């Protein structure tokens, strides 16, 4: 299964919103999905590749260059979709993209071992999990 084929009901896979239209009532001043994803890449993923000392002091395994490249590739593949609300490292050097709603969450997790997976939570319960997603 591909990361861009997770089903129409998922938040990440909602059609791109109309923020990038011009005209009355448009939200042209807000970022497009693509701009938001590019910001994720430049402000988080690239930064994590440059400074690992603080991570190691905190007992965190820094992400490898392979994991960062994989996360950037996944971000590019998802850049027409809604950008994540939260992007963090996991403790083992993996990277987590997360969309948050009131009673549900969606996660793309790029694990330190190179596996990419999708998780959907409803009311805190893991209701969908798709492992070993194709990202190319």
């Amino acid at each position: 299964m591909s990361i861009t084929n997770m089903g129409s009901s998922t938040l990440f896979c909602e059609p791109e919103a109309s923020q990038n239209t011009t005209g009355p009532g448009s939200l042209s001043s807000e970022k497009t999905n693509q701009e938001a994803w590019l910001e994720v890449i430049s402000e988080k993923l690239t930064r994590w590749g440059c400074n690992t000392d603080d991570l190691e002091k905190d007992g965190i395994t820094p992400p490898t260059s392979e994991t960062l490249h994989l996360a950037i590739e996944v971000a590019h593949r998802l850049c027409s979709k809604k950008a994540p609300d939260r992007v963090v490292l996991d403790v083992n050097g993996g990277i987590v993209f997360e969309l948050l709603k009131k009673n549900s969450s969606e996660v793309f997790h790029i694990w330190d071992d190179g596996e990419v997976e999708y998780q959907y939570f409803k009311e805190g319960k893991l209701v969908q999990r798709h492992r070993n997603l194709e990202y190319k």
Partner: protein
Amino acid sequence: MNLDCNIISDDEIIYRRIPASMEWYDGTTNTLSPEAFSPHKKNDTTGISITRAAHKSIEDAAKGMGNSYYIAELRVGDLRDHGIEVVSQPIIADGVEDISHAELPGLNAANYKSDGVIEWTRLLAEKLTLRIEGPFSSQG
């Protein structure tokens, strides 16, 4: 060693130390990422570490090798109600026994990718954390 110290009552408060640098805690939205409770696959072989508030101040619990930490406060009984066990695990630190150290053995290096641990970390972060204190500057 007083063996009674190994008994952790349901009413005890425990602390989970959260490095500020990881941005797992967002003070603007007061939200905590489940990754704050995720087991390290090398270091957490017997479970993730927590500190018993009854035996260590929050300021001391926040000390670590990094620069700054938040502390998540949880109640032991809330974890046990959801099947998350909390056990005393004293350690030797600088030649002195530290009885404040405890662990959550169900969240460990062997099962860090399991469905159960993934759900539990989210539960801990989103429902069972009573409050977040800090940041505390650490001298490490």
